[in-house]
């Protein structure tokens, strides 16, 4: 819309649902067009029948009041002042140091500036940041990467020092810093802004897991380990502050939010007890390399052991998941071995089993939301979507392709439990740099 106006000279009204009024305003300002033509209809728009949508058109603008269509006409026909025809630019630079203040006031400032997770933070004094920087050989002013809450939003940039500031805030130790840097350099975010409330899951592989005392055993995904907790919290805080915020209604749109975001569900894979090769080795890394992998996850379903009717149970557990968002198995080593006992002795074989056995009718697969999300792939003849779209309504088709199924092993073998998360790695186009590897190396950040 901004381009239609500024590059092609076409007066254009962008219509949004009203809950995004502040986001739209912020986006217009950061695009140099602060009074872009905007009109608003009520939410929700998804899944509404034609009669409701018609009432949106015939009703009032949901933000500004007055008839919606009158506002659209006014926006397209009213004369504009010179300042709107020129656009606006301004200096957005921020000082390296904040105004000195007391501990109590600074805690309040950080909280009210939306720089925290609303819990107390360790204030990033120069001495503490300097100590954190000792955890890496990289220089403080080196660029770490670019960051944004989601595709289509502006890209912010970070340096090693900026990541160190956030690592201090999270209470991390210098030995955690290489993992935090690797996560921040990965092109992923721990504060994705999606309306769907996706959270993050950070999985660490390789020698650094044990060097810094990460937990891959009992309680690996819970609040029972300093490194797990601090690295995950640091990645979350750094994500929100380095990308320009994660503020509800402005730079975060998750309708319900996600509790996993507090520490980005950070843990180490239990390589020692897993019957599979380590996750990062299956992705082309050497066992002696350390890596960090960011998954985007929603909810999970849980069960214990592969019991007598496990194929039926597994199919039932998975068949209600959304097709495009992937499935992420987190297996206790006991359950990983039970899969091996069933002949599924690798990640690839588990993914293949899911592909062959977890199937749903094409009519349910191709509901309106799914069609909407991949219509350009279907129309472009991209496989497998193009072939799947040709299936008859009652034909059973694979819910997940093999590339949509991931498996990691974590847990302390107190019993044979496993969870299947709706989730996957983010497709490259949605990451801040689509050229970066999906499994990020840690060692260059030591």
């Amino acid at each position: 819309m901004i381009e239609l106006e500024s590059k092609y000279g076409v007066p254009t009204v962008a219509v949004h649902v009203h809950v995004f009024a502040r986001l739209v305003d912020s986006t217009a300002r950061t695009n140099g067009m602060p009074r872009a033509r905007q009109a608003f209809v009520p939410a929700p728009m998804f899944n509404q029948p034609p009669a409701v949508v018609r009432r949106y058109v015939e009703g009032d603008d949901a933000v500004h009041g007055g008839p919606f269509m009158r506002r659209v006409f006014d926006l397209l026909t009213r004369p504009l002042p010179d300042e709107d025809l020129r656009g606006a630019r301004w200096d957005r630079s921020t000082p390296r140091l904040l105004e000195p203040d007391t501990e109590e006031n600074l805690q309040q400032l950080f909280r009210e500036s939306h720089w925290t997770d609303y819990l107390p933070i360790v204030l990033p004094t120069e001495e503490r940041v300097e100590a954190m920087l000792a955890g890496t050989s990289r220089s403080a002013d080196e660029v770490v990467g670019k960051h944004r809450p989601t595709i289509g939003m502006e890209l912010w940039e970070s340096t090693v020092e900026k990541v160190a500031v956030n690592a201090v805030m999270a209470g991390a130790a210098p030995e955690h810093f290489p993992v935090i840097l690797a996560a921040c350099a990965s092109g992923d975010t721990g504060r994705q802004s999606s309306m769907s409330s996706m959270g993050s899951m950070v999985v660490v592989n390789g020698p650094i897991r044990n060097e810094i005392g990460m937990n891959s055993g009992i309680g690996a995904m819970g609040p029972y380990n300093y490194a797990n907790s601090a690295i995950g919290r640091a990645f979350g805080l750094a994500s929100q502050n380095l990308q320009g915020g994660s503020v509800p209604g402005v730079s975060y749109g998750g309708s319900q939010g996600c509790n996993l975001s507090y520490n980005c569900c950070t843990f180490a894979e239990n390589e020692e007890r897993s019957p599979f090769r380590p996750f990062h080795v299956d992705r082309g890394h050497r066992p002696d390399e350390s890596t960090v992998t960011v998954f985007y996850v929603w909810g999970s379903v849980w069960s214990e052991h592969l019991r007598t009717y496990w194929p039926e149970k597994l199919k039932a557990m998975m068949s209600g998941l959304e097709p495009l968002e992937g499935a992420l198995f987190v297996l206790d080593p006991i359950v990983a071995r039970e899969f091996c006992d069933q002949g599924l002795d690798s990640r690839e074989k588990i993914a293949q089993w899911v592909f062959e056995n977890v199937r749903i009718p094409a009519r349910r697969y191709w509901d309106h939301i799914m069609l909407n999300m991949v219509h350009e792939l279907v129309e472009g003849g991209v496989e497998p979507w193009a072939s799947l779209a040709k299936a008859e309504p009652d034909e059973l088709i694979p819910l997940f392709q093999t590339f949509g199924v991931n498996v990691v092993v974590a847990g302390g073998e107190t019993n044979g439990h496993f969870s299947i998360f709706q989730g996957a790695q983010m497709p490259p186009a949605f990451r801040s740099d689509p050229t970066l590897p999906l499994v990020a190396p840690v060692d260059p950040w030591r």
Partner: protein
Amino acid sequence: MSVATKTQPKLTVLNPEGYPPKVDARGMAPGLDTLQGKTVFLIDVGFENSDQFVEQLHGWLEEHEPGIRTEVVRWRDQHNPDPELCERIAAEGDAAIIGVGT
């Protein structure tokens, strides 16, 4: 910021925010004198139910504003620019309504 006490020392701390990109000014297109006799492109941006919104918008305009020509089009990919469509709208249209941003 009203809770400072005289006994608390003042600390100097670093700003945790990243570096934002420069804002380039982008000018808006001038408004039209009237929409009557003009061609307005109605753009389905591709988000869920946007097609339904554009269909209802189209119906309303045909019913209430028959003097405005309308053309319904679809943005190729909701997350990326569509220069071909933009060029067509610039060549054949006078204004546009795009929705629904969600």
